[in-house]
């Protein structure tokens, strides 16, 4: 039978099922295939905090959203065009995110009475048949039955057979979107190289899904999404935590110091540890400490010993590290502290994203304790941003906080990766000589106000440092009131001085003067970019800046802000950056705040732009 081919410029698919259904894997496979094909894309996994919540229930639903296109893609997208629902709970949890007229691909076996009951549908109600889905195109597949049929002769048990279900769906989608299966075939061959029967089963089911689309007469339309016009170059796909790990390794290689990474497992930061632990041949020592405090303290010890020292955590862990961060600041030792933010307060929403730790980064310590803060705006940007964090730490002898978040950490996008020799050099040197006649003064500062790094083992520079207030230059304990005030101001001045050595704030889009400036930081980037883009198409004058350096701010930030009639600051918190801007620049900035553990959608920001500019 003939099928028609429809060309689309972008598609948003959400894969949803039980956390054991393999939806993350299915999503990643489809994503990598799209990336290799040349689509621009952005992804957003959304999984439950529980590793295995009760089967079939809404808390157990795991999702993976992919936005891919032949146009530039800025965010994982708002309303889905296609929802793959492996069971009733997956449908119930995600249907509101599907656009009217969108497609629902439902695994009918996941809508049996038991699954319907677990998903809390009323007795006798089945959304596949009761009109709930009237405004959607529904494709019902009995995935379980067809998977079992494909594997009747495999000799595998039912449990193992059912585990291959996700491959049927993937195969079907590959057919629907005209995709080659090469990438997944290769992936399966590697993954199951030691389990030939499982490999065989997965390949069979994947092909069965594809062939089902091809031979079944039900489906008449296939879709093509052409490659996107991206800047020329070589690309790979990358997730935020992976990019963070690579950025750290790159910094270690470029500064010539081995890295010591001390950490304690915490969601959503742990993948940075997993990634780094693989690369010991880069001279990386990973250390899984007994707790968050030990993690940062071990890193302080490693920094004292002369290594690139890094710790990573999320909000609750950062709270535990606060005292030691203050110590690092007093010691003026280079240290990178990574916070992959998640929903808070307290344990909060471990697997959900939020930007609510900006104030914690800026103010979350006792005493006057300024630590430079830097935030990345997209998964791939984690690489460059954490690299910059290392550069600042080493060149200015200071701890630096790098802010990522759950959305960036687990999201992915194509990355035009740099060559090692294109990376900015990181200049760091140990002090070998006395710096004051026949004396060594550990707190004698250079033009950048940073102090010498004299590591143990250096003859003649023996010295003691500690958390007690220290005398200017000598570093000796001092309780002198004048000295304390001087040192507090000195430490703040040192951090401010970094502004001389970072780029000026650039515009992401729009004119340098005008009616409305949207100011973002961190992972809101894609949604703001998309919204600003759409607003301009609708005829609104909108400009957009995304701030990477949050302490110190780029020197021209005030000047930029003063050039606009209105300033809008979308944040996934109750308004932290907006308060800072009001406080430091006295501008009447307006907040747009979302605290749902979910990233902004483009239209949420677009609505606000229209509201502000229509007045």
């Amino acid at each position, binding site marked *: 039978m003939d099928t028609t081919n429809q060309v689309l410029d972008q598609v948003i698919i959400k894969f949803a099922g039980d956390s054991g259904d393999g939806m993350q894997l299915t999503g990643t496979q489809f994503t*990598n295939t799209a*990336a*290799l094909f*040349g689509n621009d894309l952005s992804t957003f996994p959304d999984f439950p905090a529980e590793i295995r919540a009760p089967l079939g229930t809404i808390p157990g639903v795991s999702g993976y959203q992919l936005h891919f296109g032949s146009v530039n893609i800025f965010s994982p997208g708002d309303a889905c065009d296609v929802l793959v629902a492996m069971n009733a709970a997956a449908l119930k949890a995600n249907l509101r995110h599907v656009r009217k007229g969108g497609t629902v691909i439902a695994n009918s076996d996941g809508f049996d009475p038991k699954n319907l009951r677990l998903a809390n549908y009323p007795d006798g109600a089945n959304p596949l048949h009761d009109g709930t889905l009237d405004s959607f195109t529904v494709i019902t597949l009995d995935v379980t039955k067809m998977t079992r049929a494909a594997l009747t002769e495999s000799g595998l048990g039912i449990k193992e057979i059912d585990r291959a279900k996700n491959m049927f769906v993937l195969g079907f989608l590959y057919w629907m979107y005209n995709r080659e299966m090469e990438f997944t075939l290769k992936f399966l061959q590697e993954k199951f190289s030691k389990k030939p029967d499982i490999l065989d089963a997965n390949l069979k089911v994947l092909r069965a899904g594809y062939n089902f689309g091809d031979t079944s007469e039900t489906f008449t339309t296939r879709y093509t999404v052409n*490659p996107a016009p991206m*800047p*020329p*170059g*070589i*690309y*790979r*796909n*990358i997730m935020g935590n992976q990019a963070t790990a*690579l950025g750290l*390794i*790159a910094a270690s*290689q470029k500064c010539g110091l*081995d890295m*010591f990474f*001390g950490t304690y497992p915490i969601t959503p930061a742990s993948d940075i540890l997993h990634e780094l632990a693989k*690369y*010991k*041949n*880069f*001279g*990386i*020592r990973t*250390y899984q*400490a*007994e*707790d968050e*405090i*030990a993690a940062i*303290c*071990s*890193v*302080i*010890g*490693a920094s*004292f*010993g*002369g290594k690139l*020292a890094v710790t990573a955590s999320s909000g609750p862990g950062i709270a535990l590290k606060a005292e030691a961060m203050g*110590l690092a600041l007093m010691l003026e030792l280079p240290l990178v502290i990574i916070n992959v933010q998640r929903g808070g307060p307290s344990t909060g929403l471990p697997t959900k994203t939020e930007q609510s730790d900006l104030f914690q980064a800026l103010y979350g310590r006792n005493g006057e304790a300024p630590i430079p803060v830097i935030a990345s705006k997209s998964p791939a940007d984690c690489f460059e941003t954490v690299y910059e964090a290392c550069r600042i730490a080493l060149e200015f002898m200071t701890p630096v906080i790098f802010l990522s978040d759950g959305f960036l950490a687990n999201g992915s996008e194509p990355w035009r*990766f*740099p*060559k*090692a020799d294109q990376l900015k050099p990181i200049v760091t040197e140990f002090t070998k000589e006395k710096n004051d006649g026949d004396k060594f003064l550990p707190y004698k500062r250079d033009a950048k106000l940073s102090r010498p790094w004299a590591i*143990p*083992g*250096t003859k*003649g520079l*023996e010295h*003691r*440092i*500690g*958390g*007690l207030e220290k005398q200017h230059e000598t570093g*000796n*304990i001092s309780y002198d009131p004048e000295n304390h005030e001087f040192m507090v101001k000195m430490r703040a001045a040192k951090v401010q001085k970094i502004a001389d050595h970072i780029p000026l704030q650039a515009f992401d889009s729009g004119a340098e003067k005008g009616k409305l400036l949207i100011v973002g930081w961190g992972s809101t980037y894609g949604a703001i970019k998309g919204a600003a883009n759409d607003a301009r198409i609708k005829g609104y004058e909108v400009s957009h800046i995304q701030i990477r350096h949050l302490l110190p701010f780029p020197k021209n930030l005030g000047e930029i802000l003063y050039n606009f009639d209105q300033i809008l600051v979308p944040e996934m918190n109750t308004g932290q950056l907006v308060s800072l801007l009001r406080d430091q620049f006295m501008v009447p900035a307006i907040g747009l705040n979302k605290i749902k553990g979910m990233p902004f959608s483009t239209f949420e920001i677009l609505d606000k732009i229209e509201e502000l500019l229509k007045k």
Partner: protein
Amino acid sequence: MELNTQSPEAPKMLSKDLVTDQEVRWCPGCGDYSILKQVQTVIPELGIARENIVFISGIGCSSRFPYYMETYGMHSIHGRATAVASGLKAIRPELSVWIVTGDGDAMSIGGNHFIHLLRRNFNVNILLFNNEIYGLTKGQYSPTSEEGKVTKSTPMGSIDHPFNPFALAMGAEGTFIARSMDRDPVHLKEMLRRSNAHNGTSFLEIYQNCNVFNDGAFEIFTEKSSKKEEAMFVEHGKPLIYGQNQDKGIKLEGFKPVIVDLTANGNSANDLWIHDETDRAKAGILSRFFDRHEAGIEHFPRPFGAFYVEQRPCYEEMLNAQVEEAISKKGAGDLDKLLQGREIWEIH
């Protein structure tokens, strides 16, 4: 370990070379003075260049120690010296790292890091100054204070059951566990030498008198009149003997220690418990010699010396061996290859 020695032509280090220009600010009469002096006496004997020595402390009276040692040093935060030292030793195994801590610092706020350091067995030395009181905060009971202790925070007497630091260290799989006291310089120096010589985490508990807030806490072990009856100095391969005239001994009946009067008929030193510092089971029994003269309980002398010594690989050796193994198997890392990853595509 090549950095760990002084070059032969270097002038010999003297005790005074380890004295800093900082005024020592412990209370007059504090036991810390004696410990500082013994450390400054022993270190020059060890053949370690001054620049390769690091003293790391937490918070408390004892933790001022690094300021008085002309070596590298860090006065860190409360309870965390053990964690800081772990990170330093992990990446600089050639350094001689000493941790100075107290009973509050190591057993209370830093208890977690203390036990984890012991199990990991980094090759560092812990000097725990135990004065059974919080001195720097002016006299609250500590996790090693005895039950019933009346302090500012326990006017009706402490109801906290104290830690037995040896039992704790045994439970945490420590590989060198020893005790000494501020008022026995000869023994203290010997224990410092042994701590340094041990390849692994050396835990040396030092009874230290706080003459302001807990004066005389260890008097029965340190004063001439009672020391011989109350303190028992153990040495590897020698019988457990103590007493005014070395007239008492400890014998094991199964797992039960029994005090023996060596002057009585039929008792001989040959039947006594011979101290074997490598015997974990016996060290466990010895660690229970921790009673405080209570009616109805048989009273044992408090043991001093090296209780338990075990050889086990150090964390930093294994950590660095893994790095070397990874390099020899995969070759030194190639950054360009890493950045490229496994799957790439080109846009023209």
